[in-house]
């Protein structure tokens, strides 16, 4: 290796632009930030160094406007093997000598301009975060938001995103087992594409994203480096605008076949014992991986960028360092074990090139044909080190007073429950997502015990154990918009409730915080409140945050998206064979119960509901009722009922309220139900049928002697209550309130809007019902 050239400062190459404040501003740095760079370096940065600072200090890499708030989330727990932010993904001990690595991440901006590749590389990026830790990905999930399907551009985005997720995941060979899709005009110009991956690894066999051991060689492996994705991280740190179309080259291009090879080769090389540290190249590519690994190991690196395998002629060091070409890893190998890594990657027909060496001076030195073009202190660049941390100004938005003063006095109560129910079942938010999930391979690897469809959370078995994982992504952005704190709490509560309904004990979350421009005080106030709400709920359920991702600047010229803190919840099913529970009614004559907090079965009105939005076109009112202690009691009760073998089906009451919940329980196995609800005093029928008060679950049980008292004992000791509300059977859903029939619809007639809404909106024939 050439000697360090630290006595003569690095220089820009001839032909590169002159670095000055103006160029720094063009790179997205502020004047203040550029001043800090000058102070730290004691000189003007080279062009390459300016590129490095601009991506490392971009919002996307530095979390500069969010980290102070995120740190208020609970991030400790007995089962956590690594803390939030310490590695590429969270790591949770699930017993039996196994750990689960899981994380969710956004790919919103790329998907807004190039939906297919944007979504595909989102899936690819999150898989690498998992297998760079030595874990084999076993399940993918996602969380998607689009504008109205009436808009052809939205249909193009929706179609492209679904194809992108499908093509990448299907080829890569990891089942896409769950997700959510939600439509609202607020997402019109700025869709959200959040991808989650779940992997499994033996405890003690994980890899770390660290550079250590002076003199150890540094390898780049995987794909060759091209010009795709340069400044992708910077692009993700600004609002979508008319000019965004020109950013199409900032979108990376995915190659799932190479990713599959990289997965197998990476796991093999980690297993070989030759690896000191390994990190995938995501945002900011080689720059970010080299700086972060160096900082973590408190050492430095010399990188010869001219040795990086490239796809196209004439690439500059600036471009190579900033490229976000996919399917690449940076690996520090124990000196002397170079032949091991070379043999493994050659076996998989992948590039494997030694490009540098670990040093002890804490600096990343970049050489281009022997000439130093950058020499930067790693610590100064990274999150948790010298990267800027801002606490932004907050201001409670005025719209909250308007929406929260809503009353339903001017909204006529529902007369025909059946026709409103059918209208709701035909809302794309509630309608079956079969059109989406049939384009995903949901079963490969033969672990999918409960996939998408009639289940509140997906359940994946863990081969070689009796356990399963119950996983779910969830967020109702409308609630967060209407009441940021309560909405943040509900996002966590509902995800946990879904996991519980599937038979799992919630253990930890990952999150993807999708918000608008943090420099707008109203946006920042909402962000802070929503994160606060998530923290409240995580503490109440003892589900710490293991990591995740923040995506700001989700705005289009029409304004910000609904604040959408997507929760990825991990639960453990102790006995996957016995405890896995799905939402569909199973057999005629089964008894139907409503599990709720002690003291009430329905609360509040139609504020914040899908009903109010779909039928009256209003996003209005407060978020629905939630009390975290009540919610917790319902979880405890439900899990105990499942563990004692009493539960045939379980489904939580969420979007569309009790009536939609019952209809969904009926539709999947084409089983009707006869339901009788109490007439509550001063309670409107729309609120009873379609109100979305939280913490409620509809479940069914086999009829047996003294069933109610047995169940009631379990539930009461958990602090919750149950009401018998009916019986499964027949070919229609009939609901009586007191002695009045308020809804009586053939299951077939409910199924038609439910199954056809999305295919019809996409202009395609409906699969046979």
């Amino acid at each position, binding site marked *: 290796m050439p000697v360090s050239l630290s006595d003569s400062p690095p220089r820009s190459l001839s032909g590169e632009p002159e670095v000055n404040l103006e160029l720094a501003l063009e790179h997205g740095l502020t004047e203040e930030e550029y001043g800090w760079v000058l102070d730290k370096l004691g000189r003007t940065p080279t062009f390459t160094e300016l590129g490095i600072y601009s991506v490392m200090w971009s919002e996307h890499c530095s979390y500069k406007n969010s980290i102070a708030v995120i740190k208020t989330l609970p991030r400790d727990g007995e089962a956590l093997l690594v803390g939030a932010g310490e590695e590429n993904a969270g790591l949770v001990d699930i017993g039996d000598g196994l750990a689960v690595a899981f994380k969710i991440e956004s790919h919103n901006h790329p998907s807004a301009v190039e939906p297919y590749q944007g979504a595909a590389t989102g899936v690819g990026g999150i898989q690498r975060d998992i297998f760079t830790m030595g874990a084999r990905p076993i399940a993918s999930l996602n969380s998607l938001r689009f504008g109205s399907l009436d808009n052809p551009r939205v249909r193009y985005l929706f179609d492209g995103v679904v*194809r992108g997720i*499908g*093509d990448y995941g*299907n*080829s*890569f*060979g990891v089942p896409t087992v769950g997700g959510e899709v939600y439509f609202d005009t607020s997402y019109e110009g700025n869709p959200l594409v959040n991808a989650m991956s779940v992997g499994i690894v033996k405890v003690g066999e994980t890899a770390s994203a660290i550079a250590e051991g002076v003199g150890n060689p540094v390898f780049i492996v995987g794909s060759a480096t091209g010009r795709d994705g340069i400044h992708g991280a910077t692009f993700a740190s600004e609002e979508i605008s008319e000019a965004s179309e020109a950013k199409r080259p900032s979108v990376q291009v995915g*190659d*799932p*076949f*190479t990713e*599959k*090879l990289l997965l*197998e080769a990476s796991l093999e090389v980690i297993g070989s014992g030759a690896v000191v540290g390994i990190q995938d190249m995501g945002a900011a590519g080689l720059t970010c991986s080299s700086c972060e690994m160096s900082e973590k190991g408190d050492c430095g690196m010399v990188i010869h960028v001219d040795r990086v395998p490239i796809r196209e002629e004439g690439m500059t060091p600036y471009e190579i360092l900033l490229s976000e070409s996919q399917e690449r890893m940076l690996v520090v190998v124990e000196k002397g074990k170079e032949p091991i890594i070379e043999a493994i990657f050659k076996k*998989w*027909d992948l590039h494997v090139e030694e490009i540098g060496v670990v040093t002890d001076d804490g600096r990343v030195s970049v050489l281009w044909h022997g000439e130093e073009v950058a020499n930067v202190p790693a610590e100064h660049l990274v999150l948790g080190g010298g990267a800027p941390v801002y606490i932004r100004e907050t201001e409670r938005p005025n719209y909250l007073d308007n929406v929260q003063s809503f009353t339903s006095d001017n909204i006529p109560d529902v007369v025909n429950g059946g026709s409103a129910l059918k209208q709701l079942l035909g809302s794309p938010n509630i309608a079956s997502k079969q059109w989406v*999930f*049939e*384009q*995903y*391979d*949901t*079963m*490969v*690897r*033969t*672990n*999918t*015990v*409960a*996939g998408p469809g009639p289940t509140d959370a997906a359940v994946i*078995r863990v*081969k070689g154990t009796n356990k399963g994982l119950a996983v779910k992504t969830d967020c109702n952005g409308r609630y967060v918009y209407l009441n940021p704190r309560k909405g943040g709490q509900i996002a966590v509560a509902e995800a946990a409730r879904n996991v519980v309904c599937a038979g799992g004990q919630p253990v930890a979350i990952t999150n993807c915080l999708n918000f608008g421009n943090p420099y707008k005080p109203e946006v920042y106030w909402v962000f802070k409140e929503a994160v606060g709400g998530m923290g409240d709920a995580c503490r109440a359920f003892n589900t710490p945050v293991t990591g995740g991702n923040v995506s700001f600047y989700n705005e289009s010229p029409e304004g910000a998206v609904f604040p959408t803190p997507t929760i990825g919840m991990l639960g453990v099913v102790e006995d*996957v*064979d016995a405890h896995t529970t799905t939402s569909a009614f199973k057999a005629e004559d089964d008894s139907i119960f409503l599990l709720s907090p002690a003291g009430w079965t329905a609360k509040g009105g139609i504020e914040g509901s899908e009903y109010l939005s779909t039928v009256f076109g209003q996003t209005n009112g407060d978020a629905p009722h939630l009390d975290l202690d009540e919610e917790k009691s319902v979880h405890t009760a439900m899990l105990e009922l499942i563990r004692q073998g009493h539960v045939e089906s379980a489904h939580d009451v969420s979007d569309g309220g009790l009536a939609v919940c019952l209809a969904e329980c009926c539709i999947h196995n084409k089983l009707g139900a006869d339901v009788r609800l109490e007439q509550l005093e001063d309670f409107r029928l729309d609120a009873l049928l379609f109100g979305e008060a939280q913490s409620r679950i509809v479940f069914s049980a086999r009829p047996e002697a003294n069933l109610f008292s047995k169940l009631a004992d379990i539930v009461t000791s958990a602090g919750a209550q149950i009401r018998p509300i009916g019986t499964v059977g027949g070919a229609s859903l009939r609901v009586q309130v007191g002695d009045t029939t308020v809804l009586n619809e053939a299951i077939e007639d409910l199924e038609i809007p439910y199954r056809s809404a999305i295919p019809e909106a996409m202009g*395609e024939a409906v699969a*046979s019902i």
Partner: protein
Amino acid sequence: MKFAILVFPGSNCDHDAYHAAKHVFEQEAKFVWHKEERLGDADVVIIPGGFSYGDYLRAGAIARFSPVMKDVIRFANEGGLVLGVCNGFQVLCEAGLLPGALMRNASLRFACKDVHLRVENNATPFTSEAQIRQVLNIPIAHGEGNYEADEATLDELERENRIVFRYCDASGNATSESNPNGSARNIAGIINAEGNVMGMMPHPERCVESILGHGSEDGAVIFRSLVEHVDSAVVA
């Protein structure tokens, strides 16, 4: 008996086939890497699903040139049993071991779902444990499963009773609504003239355990048939 499961770099159902053979049916099973030139000792070769070499060109188009495929062709020509599932079916067609080709689904979309299959021929080593016209519930997961061949070939397949499975509805009617990908004559699986090489788009290895998905174990009949066939041949 011994299953040999081919592993192309982009195979992704290799572990599923192995799990079914080894752990569910408790038979010997081994992986054979695509760069190997010899299959070694095997009674049945499974070419599993996946995207063999990425399949950006055409599914299975490159896999046929891999070193291991030469030995699979030798094995098949000597009467060895070869089962191609999904991408494996595509590879068998590309390699000329089965006639026809798998085109993009008529919907132009990937489709992963449970479908019904009617057993058309149970006089094969792959289906001997099934009843004729039995309806099986087995999932598909493919973007290119639309079976096409010229009319003469299709007629020949019909005449020689070489269509092993057809897509059908729950009652066994091979309707166009029950055809998930536009396949000619609802063809889901065919066998060669010698009766030892079968390709099918649906995934039997995905439904051999009731705990999974919708609880179907209908894929088991294919593994049981193979085990029965090989074991009885050994006894004879």
